[in-house]
């Protein structure tokens, strides 16, 4: 099995540990990982803020970078959602506005080949127990795009529950948005902070040591709030937990 890693711009620049964890995890499971260097950002920030035209070149770049790959894996639910749900939509709009049909074709071609990490593990590789070891109490926040656009369902929780030593505790109000929302955090700072505060309060109420998620952008917002208050839990990407083993624990 071969898979191309779409690491995403946020992970590349700020959370390389997540990308490294995905590589370790997939290689441990016998997957040959490619990293097409021409990849960049999926264009989600531009698109969601109302700059669809700016997102189009990035969409083209992403589609071209992964043109030859049957399986594209990404440790970001919202970027996977951008490609799967919004690329075809952007492509159609571009075609309707007379800017050539090839963007629509590129988008439609890429969308079904993109998998969020937990989908790839469970749906493609058919594994739930990935052989991980993580002796900590963990609570899981399902980010909105994973939950509602991708429909990840209980995949992340099933993977976590199979981790040796891991004690999974339910997050109260798990399905509520954390308040990040891309530029929302900057455009509506008061509401964003109020939502984030409620979320970290729920997380703290579980007594968990780790707040786990599948989107580093939501985690950056929550972790930033936790660290500002200097309180537990600490935020950690799912991939890092799944990559940890007894021989090679999380550092």
């Amino acid at each position, binding site marked *: 099995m071969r898979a191309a890693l779409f*690491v995403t*711009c946020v*992970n*590349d*620049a*700020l959370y*390389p*540990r997540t*990308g*490294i964890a995905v*590589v370790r995890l997939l290689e441990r499971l016998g997957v040959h990982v*490619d*990293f*097409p*260097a*021409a990849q*960049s*950002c999926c264009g989600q*920030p*531009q*698109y*969601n*803020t*109302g*700059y*669809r035209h*700016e997102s189009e*070149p*990035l969409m083209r*770049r992403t589609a071209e*970078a992964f043109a030859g790959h049957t399986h594209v894996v990404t440790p970001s639910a919202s970027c996977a959602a951008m490609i799967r749900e919004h690329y075809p*939509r952007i492509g159609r709009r571009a075609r309707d506005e007379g800017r050539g049909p090839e963007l629509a074709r590129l988008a439609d071609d890429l969308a079904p080949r993109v998998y969020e990490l937990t989908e790839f593990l469970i749906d493609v590789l058919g594994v739930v127990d990935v052989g991980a070891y993580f002796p900590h109490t963990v609570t899981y926040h399902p980010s*909105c*795009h994973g*939950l*509602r656009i991708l429909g990840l369902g209980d995949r992340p929780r099933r993977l976590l529950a199979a981790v040796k030593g891991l004690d999974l505790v339910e997050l109260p109000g798990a*399905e*509520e*948005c954390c*308040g*990040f929302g*891309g*530029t*929302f*955090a*900057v*455009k*509506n*700072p*008061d*509401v964003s*902070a*109020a*939502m*984030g505060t409620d979320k970290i309060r729920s997380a703290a109420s579980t007594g968990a040591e780790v707040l786990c998620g599948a989107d580093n952008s939501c985690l*950056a*917002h929550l972790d*930033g*709030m936790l*660290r500002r208050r200097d309180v537990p839990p600490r935020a950690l990407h799912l991939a890092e937990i799944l990559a940890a083993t007894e021989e090679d624990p999380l550092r």
Partner: protein
Amino acid sequence: MTAIPLGMPAFPTAARDGVHDEVLRANLRHATHTIRDKRARAVAELADWDRLREAGKAVKDHTLRHLDRYLLELEESVTAAGGTVHWAADADEANRIVTALVLATGEREVVKVKSMATQEIGLNEALEAAGIAAYETDLAELIVQLGHDRPSHILVPAIHRNRAEIRDIFRTEMASWGRPAPDGLGDDPRELAEAARLHLREKFLRAKVAVSGANFMVAETGTMVVLESEGNGRMCLTLPDTLISVVGIEKVVPTFRDLEIFLQTLPRSSTAERMNPYTTMWTGTTDGDGPTAFHLVLLDNGRTDTLADAVGRQALRCIRCSACLNVCPVYERAGGHAYGSVYPGPIGAILSPQLRGTASEIDASLPYASTLCGACYEVCPVAIDIPEVLVHLRERVAQGGPVTREGIRVRIRPARGHTAERAAMRAARLLLDRPGALRAGERLLSRAHRLRPRRLPGPGRAWTDSRELPRPPAESFRDWWTRERGDRGEEHR
């Protein structure tokens, strides 16, 4: 659409009051969480919910596509049944029509059934200016009216008020509008409801003219449908001699049978009831029973312009159930008043900027009053993809583009204040579209990781005001990969 509260600031500023008002937030949190849990249970009872949702969407889309035809059919049916149809292009015209109709009866007061359309056009204020008193008869509307307040929720306009606040409003205000509150009124819900009942009963029995909206209008029969929980609506629809209904043109459905869908989806979505307590249907006039004169005012007020927009028109499917408000985490914190419209919450964020345009500060900020979390889309009984419309309207605000205004296709310019953002988005795209440059940028960031400031200047301040910045790593993923794996899989461009 008129009636933007005067000097209404942009959403982020308006929301600040709500966010920092502890009482308001507690009231809202309690109310919305209770109703959203109940709704989920009521919906789960129906095995064919998804199909009902699809059917509702399909009926609405079909009707909107052939709206001209169905409206003419409706006019014919209503007229044949003894009613009179009036067409109003905008709020002013609708207000003029209703005022003239009331004055023609010689009356100086009307009772009102809760209606979004009449609030949208500011009818009560227009009537007042003509010397006509309009009495709201829905309990929550009564609380808002007595409290000189604005509604903050589609279904529960006084959702932001708790019992103690309501008792105080009744005690101090009821007397100046009619029967005073009973002595020693407490804040028990039953006591409050009884006080309202006594106060309103006088009005019902005296009123000669009623003003209502409608949830649905059936084209084939000319039947108007009102769903409500308190029975006040039925009093208004049956006791007075003259009934004037102001209804948005998107409320029409083709056949009586179509109601089958909505009478299941609307109550469950809005009040979490299997069936709402009162469903009143009236068709024209009948001698000796109910109003002897019936006027239907069909309101456009920006709706046909909205219909011209391929993405945005789905907002017109809305059946005003308010489920999207009750699940919205932004509404829950900001409160309904922050949306500067009678339509708050997610539906308000896409409806107001379409009906009113994006020229005002508040309307230009509404498409951004969402994290795009999608909870609203998930619960909407007519499957309005609110996040899709929000992004579409953001594009209109940030970049300008073609819109239809009063039937004419025009190109609008971007809203003010987006120049710096546009430049930043473009610069980011240019950088991200050149992996070489991106890599250099990442190296700079890594090298600066010890100089990390605690507070950022400019828009970044909003982030660092309440959060730490992520710690930049010593090495980007890209550099790690090259160091570890060499050029395997690298395709430089």
